[in-house]
């Protein structure tokens, strides 16, 4: 990750930490790799560990995947929540806030689904994940 991205992330990370804490979650970091621990509102004993990898921040969408733990295994279906657009079998999220989603849908690169670079996109990604867990979650994948 370049120096500009690192400095931009430094500025935006505190708001992400505060948001996650408000929702019973935490943030851990290894260089450009961030680990979000998230809790669905409807299942407060459950924990999901999202790995968010930035390459150029805030200019490119991050790679997002779920792991068994912070720094855990990324190829385990049980680590994933059942949410529309979260493709457990492919271990990716087909939504216009992930690198995987934009790679699959080139049409998302224009119009209102284009990757946003204004404000705090990291906070937005965290809010999207939390919103989905709070409003579209139907249990842990098998």
């Amino acid at each position, binding site marked *: 990750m370049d120096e500009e991205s690192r400095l931009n992330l430094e500025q935006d990370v505190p708001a992400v930490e505060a948001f996650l804490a408000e929702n019973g979650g935490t943030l851990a970091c290894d260089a450009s790799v961030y680990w979000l621990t998230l809790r669905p*509102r409807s299942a407060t004993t459950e924990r999901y560990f999202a790995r968010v990898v930035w390459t150029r921040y805030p200019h490119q969408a991050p790679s997002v995947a779920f792991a068994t733990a912070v720094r855990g295994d990324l190829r385990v279906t049980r680590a994933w929540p059942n949410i529309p657009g979260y493709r457990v079998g492919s271990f990716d999220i087909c939504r216009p806030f992930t690198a995987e989603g934009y790679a699959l849908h080139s049409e998302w690169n224009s119009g209102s689904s284009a990757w946003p670079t*204004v*404000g705090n*996109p990291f*906070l*937005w990604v965290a*809010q999207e994940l939390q919103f989905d867990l709070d*409003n579209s979650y139907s249990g842990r994948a098998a």
Partner: protein
Amino acid sequence: MLIGGFAYRRIDILIHRRSMEMSIDVTSGPAIIHVVVTFPLTKQPPFQEAVEPTATVGTVRTAAMAYFGVSDDAQYRYYLTHDGAKLDNAATVGSIAGHAQALKLNLVKELIQG
């Protein structure tokens, strides 16, 4: 004495009425609620507005979206959330705030699934 006694009774009644009015105020919630709406995809500071408890979530959503310069379209809808829950636009601010004088909401951009 009779006049004095009557005066005391009037004061008692006034105090009783005042305390009843105060208790009614407490149970019905504040007259004005300070609403703060945050949205991450902007350089703007949070949207803030003092509204009556009868104001709807939809009214606040519309004002906040105008402030942040965003609008619904074929691909996206914007929702207000509170404690993670998506709010019904028809709900009143007072029903969500309860006895609180301030209410913090998030504006969330949600993809309409095709």
